[in-house]
């Protein structure tokens, strides 16, 4: 198991009281596997991603465990943690324009982590590896000599992916890597990520608010709401046959073209995600849930098996009378 998260809690201390961002999350990623994490802004998915590399802000209080290759990141010493951040696991951020240094050539920027983590590598060897990496992400090696502003948005995002791959990590975490990109460029980047997972046998944790993007790219998908994973399972199953009402709403938000029910019938959820400081009692989704029952306001449902290889945290799951969807 490459990544194994168990009972992870992340709580921010703020002036207005404790803010639980991640609540009891369990998640696994294997080598050669891509796992999608879906959820809306404020659901804790970015906090979860940052915590995997212990990059969470200093005001956060953690409990539980995050095992990367069997070692707990949360208790790791500084030296091994530094090594882990590039060589073991690396991150691809959204907004590639702001993450690249505008006054340095992209070749130098890609070589930087290599030279930092492997000081024995010679200049020529580093340049050779930069060329290799660029070709791996579908850019000509000659692009190493260009500056970020000479590249388009999609090319910059490819450079970010090349940087993340520079020290041959085993785990790549991509936080909304395609958010600012056009549909066609998004498709290019997603295809690239999928190919890299297959060819390099890395584990990929792909984070997005768009469940349809995840379902077409990932093997497994976890849906997060108010800091908790509410449904987890094989990507196509979660997208096509969601068991949790929130997962169903996310799956329905982006309609199937040709689906007559969605024609002039956009599906949405009333209300807004809850304030993490004042979570509703019981199931935190019940105030917006279209199929909520009185007991939903009292019982916070645990994740229960919802079919082979999948779980869902909903009182209706496992109740044959009132199975949703």
């Amino acid at each position, binding site marked *: 198991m490459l990544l194994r998260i168990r009972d992870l809690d992340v709580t921010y201390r703020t002036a207005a009281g404790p803010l639980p961002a991640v609540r009891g999350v369990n998640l696994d990623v294997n080598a050669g596997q891509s796992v999608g994490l879906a959820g809306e802004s404020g659901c*804790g998915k970015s906090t979860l991603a940052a915590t995997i590399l212990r990059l969470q*802000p200093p*005001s956060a209080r953690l409990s539980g465990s995050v095992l990367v290759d069997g070692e707990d990141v949360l208790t790791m010493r500084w030296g091994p943690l530094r090594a882990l951040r590039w060589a073991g696991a690396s991150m691809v*951020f959204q907004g590639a324009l702001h993450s690249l240094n505008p006054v340095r050539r992209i070749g130098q920027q890609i070589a930087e982590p290599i030279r930092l983590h492997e000081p024995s590598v010679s200049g020529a060897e580093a340049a050779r590896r930069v060329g290799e990496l660029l070709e791996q992400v579908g850019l000509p090696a000659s692009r190493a000599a260009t500056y970020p502003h000479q590249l388009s948005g999609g090319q910059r995002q490819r450079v970010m992916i090349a940087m993340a791959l520079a020290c041959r990590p085993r785990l790549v975490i991509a936080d909304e890597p395609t958010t600012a990109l056009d549909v066609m460029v998004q498709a290019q980047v997603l295809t690239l990520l999928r190919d890299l997972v297959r060819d390099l046998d890395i584990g990929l944790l792909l984070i997005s608010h768009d469940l349809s993007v995840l379902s077409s790219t990932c093997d497994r998908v976890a849906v997060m709401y108010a800091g908790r994973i509410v449904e987890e399972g094989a990507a196509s199953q979660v997208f096509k046959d969601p068991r949790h009402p929130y997962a169903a709403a996310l799956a329905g938000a982006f309609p199937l073209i040709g689906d007559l029910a969605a024609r002039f019938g956009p599906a949405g959820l009333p209300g807004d995600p809850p304030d993490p400081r004042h979570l509703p009692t019981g199931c935190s989704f019940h105030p917006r849930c279209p199929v909520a029952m009185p007991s939903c306001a009292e019982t916070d449902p645990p994740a229960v098996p919802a079919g082979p290889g999948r779980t869902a945290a909903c009182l209706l799951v496992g109740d044959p009378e009132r199975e949703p969807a």
Partner: protein
Amino acid sequence: MSAGEAVPRLTARQVTRRRRRESARRTWNEFRSHRSGVVGLGILVVFVLVALGAPLLADATGLKVTAATGGVLEAPSAEYWLGTDDNGRSVLTLLIWGARVSLFVGLLATAISMVIGTLVGVASGHFRGWPSSVLFRLTEWFLVIPFLPLAIVMASVLGASLINIVLVIGVTSWPGTALLIRAQTLSIEERPFLERARALGAGHWHQMSRHVLPNVMPMVFANTTLTVAIAILTETTLSFLGLGDPLRVSWGSMLDDAFGAGAITTGAWWFIIPPGICVILVVLSFTLIGRALEEIFNPRLRRGILDETSKPRRRERS
């Protein structure tokens, strides 16, 4: 205008007024948490009270050379707490009345400078094409002219009176403000709410007064306090150079007199140090207040609480 329109206008205005009061209170609460700002405000309040209460604290006849009662450059004593000047006047009396002139010049000159700087800055940032270029060139032109020689030339051409000193300082100190406000305006012009206002049919005046100005005002406020400090120093400098109003006593003219009377060589420190310290204290108080306001109004200097969208971990990379 009919009565039907006046009534809801009033309620809408009440609504706004209440929100403004609330935001002013929030700003005040935040200001109070900046200790240096509070110290600055305290010093300033003391000087303002002294300036306002000058007639109560010291008899104005003490300013007349002819009515001087003390000896020449007497050292501090029970009667003259801060000694006397070369004409036998009490330095303390001069200092108290000098506060009036220094603060008056500082505040009024700053007001002039702020109005010109804000108008030029907002206009040159808002308009496109030649009006913007002309205003920008004008600003640059004023900026590169050496400030003190210009002020000296203007003061000697216009004649030495208090109002002229105010005008000279006001007219020469605005370009820095204009540049700052222009840069801020340019960044606000890029924000979508201006596009929305244009699509709603807003004219230039509406866009500038309703959208740009309220968003640059905090910057103007913070800048004001810093400009006051500069204006007071300039007044002191001009008076020291003998270009001040000869009929009024200011801290600058006191320093000039002290210099002229050879207070330094005769060791009459009581004639030089008190006005110098007063200038430093007032300038310092304005600077402290300005720093605190800047930190309150400029979110980039403020450390906010972390939310999901801000990415502190990005720093880890670079």
